[in-house]
Each structure stands twice: as C-alpha cells, then as structure tokens.
C-alpha cells in the first residue's frame, strides 16, 4: 500500500519528532484530517487612542436614525454590509468585508475618564482601579499557549504603560519597543544567538529559582510572599524555556525579519508595523493565542505621526488640523494606517492553512479605542470593529449592528461583548468587570446573543 499524505502526517505526529515540530504538525495533521480536527482559537485586540468615531463605522448610504451620525439609535437595528462601501477610514478592510461585524451603541461608562480609560477599556471597571484580569488575560487563561497573552504596542511614554491586568491589582506592561518584543518572543532562535545562549539562560533561570527559594527561607509570613512572585516568575520562565526548546524549529521558521529602520529611532508608523509583524509571527509560530496591540493612549500620550504630517493627536482631538488637512482628515489618515495593518495581519493569518480552512477562520480581531467614541468620550457608546468569526462561534459575516442608546431597553455594554467572546471559547459567565450603576434598571448580564451562532 502506498501511504497517503494523511497517513504520513498521522505517523509523523505520533513519532519522536512530534514534540519538536509540535504545532506545525498539529496543523498539517488537522488540515489533512478535515473538519473533525479541533481548531485552536485566537483573539487579537487592537486598541487605538483618541476614540473610534461612530461615523467611521457607518458604510456609505447608511444613516443612524437620529439627527447626527454620532448619536446612537433608539432601537436595535441591523444591516448587511454586502454591496455597501465601507467608510474610507475602514476601506483597507474591504477585502474582509464578509468577515466583519461593525458594532455600534455599546457603552462602557464605568471606565469613563478624561481621555484614555486605560485598563478600563479591556477590564470594564474604573480606570484607576485594577479590579480584575482584563479580557485579553481572561481569554488567554482559556486558550492557553506558551505565553498566555502577548502585549505589544507603541507609546510616546516608553514602557511604563499598561492596558492589561493578569489579576486584580496586577498590571501587565505593554512592550513598546519592537526590539524588546522580538527578543522576548524570538530571542531563543535569533540569528546572532545560538543554542548555547539559550542553554545559559536555562541555567540562569534554574539557578535563580533555587536562589530565591533559599532567600525566602530567611523571611516569614507576608514578607515571604513578597518573594513568591519573584520565585514564581523564574519558575514560569524556566518552564516556558522548556516549551520554547521543544518548538525551536517552528519558532525559527516564523521569526520575523525586521528591518533596522523598524528598530532604531523608528517613527510611530514603523514601530506599529514592526509590532504587527511580531504579533502575527507569534500567532503563526503558536507562541500565543491572545495578542493585544496598543497604539498610543494611556494618560495623554496619544502619539505623534510627523511622517503622516500629523505631529500631535491631541491637537486634532480638539478639532485642529494640520496644513490643508482638517481634524477629520487626520483622524481618517490615522485610522487607515491602523486598518491597513489589521488587514495585513488578517491576510497573514488567512494564508496559513489550519483545519479545513485557514488560521483566520479560527481568529477574531477586536478593534476599539481606549477612549470610547471620541477624544473626550462620554462612555455612552464604544464602537467596536470585529474581524473574523472565531471558528464559526461568532456571527460576523458582514454585519452592521447598532444597539439601542444608553439607558434604553435592550441597551448593551462592552462587558456584554467580552462575555460573548468568553462564551464563544467555552467559558460562559454572567458578568464581566463592574456593572454600570447608571444602568441598574437594565439587564447587564450575559453575552450579545445577536453575535453568537448556533455552534456556540
């Protein structure tokens, strides 16, 4: 009998090399095995500063029922995107129009602040209080991966920048330097390093775990706990080291080749481009299943794009323009930069086979702002763009959804959207974050059923 490709792959997956080739073999086997394979799901959060204008979500020809496009509707409305032209700000996403859900009318007033709601955007709680794990970490806990979450981004502020939390009170930093995020994810297989450096690191982590264990013995009670996190860090990193070692070939295959211009004194655009490349590579290499990519935001560090002729985002947030460009022109230009990068990421995932389809089929990209609907948000609406259906669990096949306005019957919140994501990956729960006291007369629990499919 001449073995088929499917048989070969099946044999390969059971052989000794399986641990080394891990995910790639899994995927090929799954690809060969057809629909019965369990697909891995992935979530990407893209969080951009200065608000997401509701107008940018409106395709040509659609109007919101109320007087201005920026006001939410009274009742739930839905339109198909098929045959419609996206707003120029979202035009780069047109190739994926059939995979989009543009969601309007959700609120997140609990996280309201001057500008950035910081952790409130992904946590649905007051900005200054880190009351729980943010949605990216909660998804990471369900979906697994060597890194439960990878947070990369761009900020004028350097690395002291957090949008995520792994637990109550535990902020997780966004790595804002592409060089650093590259080292973190692909350092083990970087060209100038070899297996030796990797082994030295393994030795270091092992030694340090032992060292901190010894240091702990000198302490008692709560003082000992102060070293527990440090010890746990070394132990986790050491464990991760073993996982990375097992997958070196896979990781090397996907390690991004960044250009010098992306790494040294890079502009905001180049930094973001590099971070998107790194994020895509991390997903392709199976290093993580949850990525958070942030752009600006946090306090008043919105970003600066002199390369686009937009030196300050605060200025345009207050209606100011630059040269012949109005504030709105500038907002569209910045949005297009981001939607282009998102489209690029989606394209990369789409070219990677997985199961009976592609990696993109098992992914959802959640694109929103840390500042709700505008530079000075009200929190009463928080537009979100969804791309991808998370392995058929979400109904995002070209839809425009507009939920009833804040306080009206049927009004829903950003927390409900996050509950939808949790539901879609098999972790249904009733509440997320802190409920909005202004909505105490409405049901704030459960997922957005409109977005779920029968399969979820």
């Amino acid at each position: 009998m001449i073995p088929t490709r499917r048989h070969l792959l099946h044999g390969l997956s059971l052989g000794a090399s399986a641990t080394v080739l891990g995910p790639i073999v899994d995927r090929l086997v799954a690809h060969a095995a057809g629909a019965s394979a369990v697909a891995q799901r992935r979530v990407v959060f893209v969080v951009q500063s200065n608000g997401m204008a509701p107008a940018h979500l409106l395709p040509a020809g659609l109007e919101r029922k109320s007087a201005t496009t920026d006001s939410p509707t009274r009742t739930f409305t839905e339109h198909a995107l098929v045959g419609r032209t996206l707003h120029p700000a979202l035009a780069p996403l047109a190739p994926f129009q059939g995979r989009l859900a543009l969601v309007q009318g959700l609120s997140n007033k609990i996280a309201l602040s001057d500008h950035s709601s910081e952790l409130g955007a992904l946590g649905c709680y007051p900005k200054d209080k880190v009351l729980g794990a943010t949605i990216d970490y909660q998804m990471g806990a369900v979906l697994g991966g060597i890194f439960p979450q990878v947070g990369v981004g761009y900020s004028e502020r350097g690395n002291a920048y957090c949008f995520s939390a792994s637990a109550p009170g535990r902020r997780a930093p966004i790595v804002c330097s592409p060089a650093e995020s590259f080292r973190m994810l692909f350092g083990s297989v970087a060209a100038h390093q070899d297996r030796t450096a990797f082994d030295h690191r393994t030795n270091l982590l092992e030694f340090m775990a032992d060292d901190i264990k010894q240091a702990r013995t000198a302490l008692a009670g709560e003082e000992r706990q102060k070293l527990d996190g440090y010890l746990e860090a070394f132990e986790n990193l050491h464990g991760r080291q073993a996982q990375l070692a097992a997958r070196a070939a896979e990781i090397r295959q996907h390690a991004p080749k960044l250009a010098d211009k992306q790494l040294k004194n890079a502009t905001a655009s180049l930094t973001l481009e590099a971070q998107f490349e790194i994020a895509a590579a991390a997903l392709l290499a199976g290093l993580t299943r949850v990525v958070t990519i942030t752009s600006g935001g946090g306090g008043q560090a919105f970003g600066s794009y002199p390369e686009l002729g937009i030196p300050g985002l605060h200025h345009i947030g207050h209606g100011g323009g630059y040269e012949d460009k109005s504030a709105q022109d500038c907002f569209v230009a910045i949005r297009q930069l981001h939607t282009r990068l998102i489209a690029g990421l989606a394209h990369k995932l789409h070219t990677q086979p997985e199961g009976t389809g592609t990696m993109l089929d098992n992914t959802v990209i959640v694109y929103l702002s840390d500042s709700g609907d505008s530079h000075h948000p009200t929190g009463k609406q928080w537009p979100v763009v969804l791309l991808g259906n998370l392995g058929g669990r979400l109904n995002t096949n070209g839809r425009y959804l507009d939920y009833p306005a804040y306080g009206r019957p049927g009004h829903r919140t950003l927390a409900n959207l996050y509950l939808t994501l949790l539901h879609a990956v098999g972790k249904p729960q009733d509440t997320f974050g802190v409920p909005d006291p202004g909505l105490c007369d409405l049901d704030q629990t459960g997922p957005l059923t409109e977005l779920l499919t029968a399969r979820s």
Partner: protein
Amino acid sequence: MFSSAGRFPLAGLLVLLKCAALGANEPTFAQTVQPFLKAHCIKCHGPDQQAGEVRLDELTAERKHTHTWGLIRAQLRDGYMPPRREPPPDAAQTRAVIAWTTALIASRPGRLPNHGNLLPHELLFGGPALTAGFGPARVWRLHPNAYQYLVRDVFKERLTGLSAPFTLQGERGIRDFADLYSLDEASTEILIRNAALIVEAQTSTENKNGQTVGRNGAVREFLDLLAPSAPTPRQLETAIQTQFRKAVARPATADEVRRYVGLYDKGVPTGDRVGAARTMLQVILLRADALYRYELGTGPADTTGRRWLSPVELEMAVNLSLGHQRHPALVPTLVAAQQQGVAAVRAAIAERVRAVLTGNKSDKERIYGFFREYFAYHHATEVFKDKPARWSYAPTQLVADTDRLMQQIVNSDRDVFRELLLTTKSFVNAIYKDENKPGRVPVLMPAVKPISFRPEKGDKPAVQFETWYGLEQFPEVQPVELPAEQRLGILMQPSWLIAWSTNFETDPVRRGRWIRERLLGGTVPDLPIGVAAMVSDDHEQPFRTRLQVTRSGRCWKCHQKMDDLGLPFEQFDHFGRYRTTEAVVDAAATAKNVDKKGKALGPVLRQVPLDTTGTITDSGDARLDGPVRDPRELIRKIAATDRARQVFVRHAFRYFLGRNESLADAKTLQDADRAYVQAGGSFRALVQALLTSDSFLYRVAPVEDQP
C-alpha cells in the same frame, strides 16, 4: 484570640495596648466580637444579603482584614451602624468591640498608605508613650530610581537599551510602601534582560595595538574570564567578589562563592566559557538582596528581644530613605558605631542626615518627594482643562512655581510646616536663566512669555501669566508677596487647587477629604463601588448649591467629613484663580442669545455672590471645631494646632519608613514631633529623629498570621 495572633509578640506592647484600649477585661474575637456581629450586622452584611457590597461573616483577625475592621470601628464609633431602624446594641458591648478593633489596628496597621489614619490619633499622641519602638523584619522592593542608581553603581559608564523593570503605583499620596510591591514575571523578564546588557558592557573588549583590552567601563577583574584558557579558581572568586560588592555592598560568603562557581561549571560543557562566566555575573545582579532593601534585623539582639539592623542593612535603610543611592562608605562607620553602642549609631545616622539635607550638591529629590506626595500639587499637570480664552495656561509652570516655593521653605528649615501652610509669598512664572551653569549670576525671567498679539489686526491682548496670581506684572524679585488677603500657603497655590479640581469644576469634596485626612488625621471611607458620583448639571446654580445633593441621607454620612472643609476653597475658580463672585448661567439671557435665524449662540453668564464659608467638625480638637469665613481662616486655625503638625509628622513617618505607624511607634512619633518643635520647626530635625528612632533601628520578626 487577639493576643495569640499578635503580630509583634512583645510583652511591653501588649501591656500598653491593654492600658490604652482595652481596660482590665480583654475582649476577644470569639467571646465579644463574633456574637456582636451575629446579633447586629450579619443579617444585612452576611451570606444572604450584602448591603453596600459589605460582607462581615467571613472576617477574621488577619491583617488582610485590618482595613475592614477600621471601617467597622468608625461606623460604630460615629453611631452610623447599626441603622436606626434596627434595635440598638448595648453601649458597653459596642465599646468592647470598638476597643477590640482599636487594638487590632494598633498592632497591625493597614497595608496601604491611605489607611494609616485608621489608628486613632489619640492613641499615638494622647499620653506618654512607654514602649520601646521597633519595626517588623521586612523586605522592601527598591524604588524605581534606586534601581537606576544600582545600575550606575554596577556599571559607571553610559549604557543604552536598559528598560525600567518596575514603577510605582499611580495613586495620589505616599506611594512607596514596603508592603505594596513585589517582583512579578514581567518585571523579572526585564531585569534579566538588563542584567545581560550590564554584564555585556562590563565584559566588553576592544583591540588596541594588537592587544585585547577592556572597553571604557569594563571591569578589570572580569577580563581574566574572557581568555580562551580556563580561569583559575582565584580569578573566578575575584570576579564573583567584585560583582558582589558592586551589587550587594558586602563580600560574598564562602558558600555563596561555591554556588556561583557551581553555576559557572555547569555552563562550561556548552563549550562557551565566556557565556558561562557572563551568566554567573548576571545572576549576582538578580539577587533578592540587591533588588530589595533587606531589613531583617540580622544584628545583635537586645534584652527585650528586638534585633539591630546590621551595619549593611542600616546603611541601605538610611541612604535609601534619604535618597536613591547607596553609600557603602557609611558601613565601616556604622560597624564602629555599633560597637560603641546605640548613641554612637544614632550620632552617625544624624550626621548622614545632616550631610544630605544641608549639602549644597546633595541630591534632595527624595526629601522633596515627600512634600510632593503629601500635598500632591504636582498632579496639576494631569488634570485636563481647556485653556481659558485669552489666558496663558501652563500647569507645568504653576507646578514649578510651587515646587520652588516648597524647596525654599524646606531649605530655610524654619517652621517648615506652618510656613508651607501660611506663607504669603509665592514664586510667579519664574525660571532662572543659566541656573545650572556654574559661575554665572542667575537672572530671573518669565518662564512663560506673554502671548503676542497684533492690535492692528483687532487682536485683544492676552491675559498674562502673572495675572494667575493676581499680579499686574512679572515680579523681578521673587518670591514675591502676593496681594494681601488672597492666598496663603501651598493649599492656595494654583497648582494645588488645579490638582484637586476636575476638568470643568472645582472639587470641594476631594479638597475637604485632603484636609480631613492629611491635616486633621481623620478617615473617610473610599467611594463605594457602584455609587455614581453625580453633581447636578444645573449650571444656573453656584457649585455649592449643586453640591447640596450630597446632604441627603446616606451620602451625608461620609460627605459631612469632607464637603464643609473643602467649600471655603470656592474662593478660587477651578483654575485656581482668586474670585469674589461666581459666574453662573443666566437662563433668561441665554434664551435671548440667538442670531437672526433663532440659532442659539451659547450660554450667557452672570455673576452671583460668592459664599466661602465652611465648618470644621469632629476634628478631634474641640477648640478647632466651628464655622470659618473663608479658606484663610480655615487654614490659619488648623495650622495653629498641635494636631495638624502631629498628623504631618505621622505622614513623614510613613514616607521615610515606608509603612503605617503602629502603637509600637508612639514614642518614635512623639519624639520626632518634639525634636521638630524644639528645633524651631526644623524638617531636618524631624528626619533625624525618625531615622535614629527605635522604630527605624530595631526589628522584630513577624509571627505568622493565623490561617
């Protein structure tokens, strides 16, 4: 229950606690407190119902519950709970529960900086303090700036590519508490990366005239490890000892050396000796005692069971309290002093404090940091405001002015606290030209220049920056005396008023809270989660009238501690500008303010009389309670009290010792207050007293909390 769970099992403290709070029959958790909770609290705050999201049936005497006990104590003491509709508890029982909670808080102060006031002021300053003080044996993660100095101590030259591994939390108030911080995975990853970069620089070489030599900043002792041949045991040990002294400021023990050599040996089979050596040098930089201040009390014990900080621990404690950089030269001095006895140790520390606080070139940023965190005026830059039309608005400069004023008062070192509250002087839009260039006479000049305008084009002149302070012109001699009877001290500086304001309004509530907590030593519970803070949007009314909403039933319970202390500051608008009337929307005129087509042209304002009165209530000093006419009277009255000064001393204690005070610190606090007063209000004397106190010098190992 309480005594067996005592955090610091010192007989002396317990005796004092009993005298202070308990009386002869010591109430216990099981016999007194639990039955009380069951009878009066659990019905609404238990498994079935959690009114106000408060649940009390799971409370224990563990330290993690200290804050909740503090809130319960305040509710009982002030008679807010149980509510009136419920049968009142027996007065003696209530007193016993209050006494028990007081004792608990006194022995296990809350972990967070803003929980320090839960320990009643009277217990610390109400009578003579008998006990000999001490602190808990503890570790304290480095301040982010101290980490930078550690890096500098390890590698003297410039080093690029390093990242800050950790930060302080962003809350207002004193931020660097020993109990707040540990190292997590994200920090650890950065620390490892930094250590690799540092060691790479320490061991980098170049080729000079055919010879391999160390680059600028490379450590000579490490270069032997880079040779192709195996290093001798002696060369290895020398390298270890060198790195150890740089990172930990002491020599490594024989056992430590053996372990590091073991790590090196483990790396050699990879075939990369140099890599193995670098790894060995990196792990020394990651040691817990390099990244944490160690204050375990590894020195000798005294007769009461307290242990000295060892000279190395003490050196770190003293220098990282005064600044961010270690000063290992102090260690031999402390070793010698410790042999002579406690007086010599105190003298050595006092001298170090003097050197830092009076030195012309010494780095006083950490000292100044206390005043910034105490007043929090530097947060003015974070409160977003639209600039008022035709006014220059530069909050950074307003902060810089206050900063300069604060530094001048601190450096004059006379009556510091009262001066900070009552000075009539101010810096105004000032910088010194060529300030940092030696040999030049600094010239005062406006930091923010008047906005240029072109009258020929119909521009109206912009209001100049000095006007913010009520002056007509830029004053060339500063600090300048501000217009009479307008402003006093830091709390009436524009920066402080802006820092404690909101985007569009003043903020009497948080200002009042600041005064309640930081001048009167009182407590206000945090805003309950789920309570939406809403002031009416009716802009036809003065803000004071709009704030009336807080006077309704359940809001007033907390707001009565704040609002009336903050309302006198209505003397200033939300930009901190002095005013004598308040602008409100004129509804009738606004309705008429339309163009020809009837389109509204925006609100029209009218001026209404300004009410700047307030009331001091429940201050803890009956002479102080009563009405005040304006913010100046309010601050004058408070500044004249011993209590406000003592509360200031308590805050200084928290900043310099990195923890809340317990009853064991009563003597330390009283001594510090006395030293401050006797030295004519000298902040230096206060810091000297704190850093030479028993609370600073001695440690007692904590006992494990009960499960």
